[in-house]
Structures are given as C-alpha cells and as structure tokens.
C-alpha cells in the first residue's frame, strides 16, 4: 500500500501515523509538505494527521484546508483515492468541504487528553471492515476543538445514509459532539474523518492494538489489488 502523510506547519502527529502505517505496509509512507502542489502518483491512501496546523489560527484546520497541496488532495479524493483525516486532519477535511459540518471548541472549553470508548457504528467501510458492527474499542483523544456540529438536516442525512462511522461510547463523549459523533465518512465512502487517534493504539507497547484493524482494513483491499 502506497501512502502519503501530509505535513502542515504545526502538524505534530505525523510520526505516530507513519509508525502505524509501517505496521501494515512494506512501502515507506511518503511525507508531503503542504506547499507542494502535486502528490506522488499511484497512491492507495492519503493521510492528514493530527496536530495544530497554523496554530489553529482563525479556526482549527481553516488555513491548512486552503494550502496548495489541498487542491490535489481534493482532486484525488474525487477520483476515489482513500483519504483519512485524524483530529486536526478531520478538522481540515471539514474546512476543505470534503466532509460536512465543522469541529467546534469543546463544550467544556478544556483541552481533553484521555482514552474514550469508541463504537464502530459502520463496519462496512473501507476503513473499518475488519471490525465487528457495534464493537466497542478503546481509543485515545487529544483535542481542544472536537465538538462536531452540523445542522439537523445534515445530521439526519448522515445517520440515514449510515455515514456516522464512529460514536463515543455511552457517557464518554469528551467534547459535546452532536449525537456523540466521533467520525464520519463522505457519500462516496472514500473520505473518513475522525477525532480519536487510532494510530496511537497499534502496538502492545502503547497499551493496546485496538486501532490496528483500521489500518489493516485500509491495507487489505490495497494488497489484494496488488496481488
């Protein structure tokens, strides 16, 4: 699986992401600087990792969503290349219009850094097919702006189309997200955004491997394609 991890000024979780990707692929992930205008060819996955791009100036993810590389990311996404945005990456995907809604300041106004229970609501996506539907996994969160907001019509449509992929388990919603939404997918099923960090539970040394199946899910169809 050939993957690219996008680096914006202020991104700080790209190394965790690369380490997680290396567990499921023999091909070294490519780090792509935001000022580039073209991504490498033949990508099986584009990842926007976590961090604080541009210091969260204006709105979290707002400036990075207008970076030069973003135009090519949008082009590839529209062509069907899988795109994963985690934390700040999710915020940027919403700001770029690849996903609906917006991540607002946490309702508590506090930065939240802890483990939550995450329900796999949709286990039929390219990113989650190795989980069981309804499975509850452990997953860390670390963010200040994870409070998912969209108007009622958008929320109803996301639910009706089974596009809410992850929800915070009962009583663990850390940020006030509407309908406990932790991650959503686009209509075409190739762009996923989520606030929790699955890359940080991919090795027993980190305390668990609950996040590993997400990366294996993405890599499995890519491997089959290569075979």
């Amino acid at each position, binding site marked *: 699986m050939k993957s690219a991890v996008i680096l914006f000024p202020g991104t700080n979780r790209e190394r965790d992401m690369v380490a997680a990707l290396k567990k499921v692929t023999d091909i070294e992930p490519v780090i792509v600087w935001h000022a580039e205008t073209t991504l490498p060819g033949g990508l099986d996955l584009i990842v926007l990792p976590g961090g604080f791009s541009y210091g969260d100036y*204006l*709105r979290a993810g*707002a400036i990075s969503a*207008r970076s030069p590389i973003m135009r090519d990311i949008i082009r590839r996404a529209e062509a069907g290349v899988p795109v994963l945005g985690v934390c700040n990456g999710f915020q940027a995907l919403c*700001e770029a219009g690849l996903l*609906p*809604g*917006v991540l*607002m*300041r*946490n*309702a*508590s*106004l506090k930065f939240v850094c802890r483990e939550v229970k995450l329900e796999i609501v949709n286990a039929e996506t390219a990113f989650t097919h190795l989980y069981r539907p309804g499975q509850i996994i452990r997953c860390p969160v670390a963010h200040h702006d994870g409070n998912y*907001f*969209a*108007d009622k019509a958008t929320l109803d449509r996301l639910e009706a189309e089974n596009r809410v992929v992850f929800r915070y388990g009962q009583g663990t919603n850390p940020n*006030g997200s509407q309908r406990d939404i932790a991650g959503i997918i686009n209509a075409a099923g190739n762009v996923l955004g989520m606030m929790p960090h699955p890359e940080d539970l991919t090795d027993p040394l980190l305390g668990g491997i609950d996040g590993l199946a997400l990366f294996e899910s993405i890599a499995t169809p890519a491997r089959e394609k290569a075979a």
Partner: protein
Amino acid sequence: MKARIIVTLKQSVLDPQGQAIEGALAALGFDGVGSVRQGKIIDIELSDPVNAEARLKAMCEKLLANTVIEDYRVEMVD
C-alpha cells in the same frame, strides 16, 4: 481603503465561550447581563478599492467565516 469584518456565531449555535464570559461577569458582580456572545474582528486594508465589497464578501465566504456556524458582516471603515 479599510474594512472591518465581524464574524459571530449563528444564534442557533451554542457559544460556550460566551457563556463562560457571562459567568465571569456575574462573578464580578455585574448585574443585569442577559446573555453574552463572542466573535472576532478582522481588519483588512485593501490596496485596490475596485470591487471592494464583492471581494470582501468572497473572502468571507471562502475563508474568513465558516458559514455552517458563523455569520459575518462587512463594514467599510474609510
């Protein structure tokens, strides 16, 4: 030519920061505060006045405000 952009959260969107300010005002003994909403001000100096209002509106729509949750207002300062 100067313009001031005022970005505020839509009335339908909960504003926890405004609520926190409201609580702090009450704690300081300021009575009679109904509610507080907070937002941001962005001052822009245009070097070219041509089509200023349309360009400023486009800037708001494309970057300065996220219209899912925010309203904006453009004021020409001079």
